[in-house]
C-alpha cells in the first residue's frame, strides 16, 4: 500500500488528473453554492449574451447562465458516470467471480453471455434499448450500466482463475468455508486492484456515452442540464453563440482526460503489468 502511494505520488500527470477530478467532484456537489445564477431561470432581456463579467460563459437562447448550467450539468454527468459504473462493476464482479471460481458450465455460460453482449456495438445496443424505455436520468444510468459490465466480468474472472489455486484459498476450502465466504472475504479483496482501475477508466467512458446520447437528444432530457444537452441546444445557434458549443465540449474533454490520467496512474502504480489486461481501450465509450 505504501509502495502504491509512493509510486502514484511520483506520477505528476496522475496527480494533476486526480486534483482536477477532486475539484470537479467538489464543484458538482456544491453547485447550488458556487453557481452565480439560477440555472433554470430564463432572462429574456439577456438572450445569447457573449461571455462577460456578469455571465462568465455567456447566456443561452432563453437567457440562462451557461456557467451555472454547466455546474449543474457536472452533477448529472458525474452522477451518471458513478452510478452506471457502480452498476456495471457490481454485475461484472458477481458474474466474473462466479465464473472464475466455479468454472465448468457456469464459466461457459457467463463467458458466452459476455461474447454475446460484445457482438453488439455499444452505441447501437444503447439506442435500441432506449427506444423501448421511457427516457429519464435513471434509465440512462441503468442502461449504460447494463451494457458496460463485460470488461469487468472478464477481468474478475481472470483474477479468480489465478487466485483460486493459491494456498490461502485451498486452506479455507479445507476447513469447510462456504463458497460465498471464500469468494467474498478471501479472493475478492485480492482482486480489487484491477477492478478499481477499470472503474476509474469506466467513469469517463460513461460520461462520454451519456453526453453523446444527450447530444443526440436521446439521453437526459431537459430541464435537466447536462454537458451533452447544452451542446445539443447550442448547435442550433452555433453561428450566433460559439460559447454554447465550445465550453461544454471543453468541460467533457478535461473531465475525461483527468479521469484517464488518474486511472492510468493508479494502474501503473498498482502493477505495470496490468497494462496488458486493463483499460486496453482507455476511457472510450463505444
Amino acid at each position, binding site marked *: 500500500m505504501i509502495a502504491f502511494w509512493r509510486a502514484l505520488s511520483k506520477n505528476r500527470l496522475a496527480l494533476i488528473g486526480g486534483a482536477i477530478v477532486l475539484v470537479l467532484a467538489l464543484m458538482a456537489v456544491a453547485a447550488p453554492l458556487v453557481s452565480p445564477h439560477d440555472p433554470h431561470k430564463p432572462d429574456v432581456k439577456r438572450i445569447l449574451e457573449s461571455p462577460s463579467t456578469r455571465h462568465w460563459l455567456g447566456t443561452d437562447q432563453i437567457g440562462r447562465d451557461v456557467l451555472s448550467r454547466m455546474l449543474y450539468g457536472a452533477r448529472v454527468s458525474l452522477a451518471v458516470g458513478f452510478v452506471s459504473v457502480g452498476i456495471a462493476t457490481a454485475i461484472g464482479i458477481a458474474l466474473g467471480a462466479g465464473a472464475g471460481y466455479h468454472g465448468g458450465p457456469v464459466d461457459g455460460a457467463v463467458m458466452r453471455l459476455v461474447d454475446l453482449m460484445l457482438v453488439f456495438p455499444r452505441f447501437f445496443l444503447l439506442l435500441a434499448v432506449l427506444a423501448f424505455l421511457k427516457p429519464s436520468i435513471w434509465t440512462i444510468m441503468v442502461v449504460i450500466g447494463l451494457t458496460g459490465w463485460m470488461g469487468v466480468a472478464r477481468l474478475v474472472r481472470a483474477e479468480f482463475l489465478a487466485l483460486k489455486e493459491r494456498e490461502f484459498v485451498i486452506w479455507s476450502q479445507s476447513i469447510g468455508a462456504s463458497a460465498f465466504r471464500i469468494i467474498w472475504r478471501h479472493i475478492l479483496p485480492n482482486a480489487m486492484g484491477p477492478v478499481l482501475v477499470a472503474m476509474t477508466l469506466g467513469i469517463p467512458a460513461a460520461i462520454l456515452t451519456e*453526453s453523446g446520447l444527450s*447530444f443526440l437528444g*436521446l439521453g437526459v432530457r431537459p430541464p435537466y442540464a447536462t454537458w451533452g444537452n447544452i451542446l445539443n441546444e447550442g448547435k442550433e445557434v452555433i453561428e450566433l453563440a460559439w460559447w454554447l458549443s465550445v465550453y461544454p*465540449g471543453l468541460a467533457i474533454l478535461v473531465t*475525461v482526460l483527468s479521469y484517464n490520467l488518474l486511472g492510468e496512474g493508479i494502474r501503473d502504480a498498482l502493477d505495470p503489468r496490468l497494462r496488458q489486461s486493463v483499460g486496453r481501450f482507455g476511457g472510450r465509450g463505444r
Partner: protein
Amino acid sequence: MIIGDPNPVDWVSVEQLRKLYGLDDPLHVQYWNWLKRIVFLDFGRSFAPHGRPVIHMIRERLPITLTLNVIEMLIIVAMAVPVGVTSATRQYSAFDKATTVFVFVGFATPDFWLAVMLQILFGVHMGWLPISGLRLPVWEYLPFWQQQWDFASHLILPITVATFGGLAGFSRYMRQSMLEVIRQDYVQSARAKGLPESVVIGKHALRNAMLPIVTVLGLSVPGLIGGSVIVETIFAIPGMGQLMVQSVYERDYPVIMANLVIVASLTLVANLIADLSYSLIDPRIRVSRRGRR
C-alpha cells in the same frame, strides 16, 4: 410490446393494424416468427408511413457505412503503424512525447463535439469544405473529375472525426507492442548478425509487433461502427448509423431490430477476418482443420 404506443381513437383500425403486423400474438410467438423470417433476411416492413421493406432500406445504406468504415480502418492502420513504430524506436524523444499528448487528448475528445467544431471552422468560417451529405445536389451535372472531388471533399470532415479517436488508440498499442518486441533476444541477434536497422525494425520486429495489433483491430470494429452513429447523424450521411437514430426517434421497431442484427453480423465477420489474418502475419499459426494436427 410497444411502450411508445400512440393513443388513437379509432380502435377498429388499431386492431386491424395490430393484426396486420402480427402484434396481437403473444410475445414469444412474435419473437419466433421474427427469428424464422430473418433467416431469409426478411425483416418485415417499416412502421413509417412509406412502409417499405426494411431490407431495402438497409441495402441502400449498408454500402455507405461499410465504405466509410473500411476507409477509416485503412487510414488508421496506415497512420498508426508508422507513428507507433517511430515513437517506440525513439522512446522519450520529442516526437514520442508529442504523440503521447495527442493520444491522451484524442482519447478524451468527444467525437460529436469535434465534429461540430470542425464543421464551424472549415465549413462555415473558412468555407473550404461541405459539412453535410455525400454529394452536391447538382452532382449529376458535374464533369467526371469534379464529381470525384466533390465526393471526396464531402468525406474529409466525417472521416477525420471518425479516425481521430481510433488513431490515438492504435498508435498507442503499436508503440506498446513494438516496445515489447524490440527488447526480445531475436531482435538483438538480428542486429548482431549485421542486418541494417531498417530490416531489423521493418521486418523482424514489425511482423511480431503486428500480431496483437490485428487482435485489437478486430476488437475495435464494433467501436468504429458504433462511432458511425454520431458521425453519420452530424454530417447527414445516409448510412446505417443515421438510419438507427431516425428509427429510434420514430420508434420504428422492425428497423431497429434489423439494424442490430446487421451490425452484430458485421462484428462477427470482422472478428473472423482478424482470426484468419493471424496466419498471414505469423506462419506459426495455422488455421487448423479438425483431425489434422
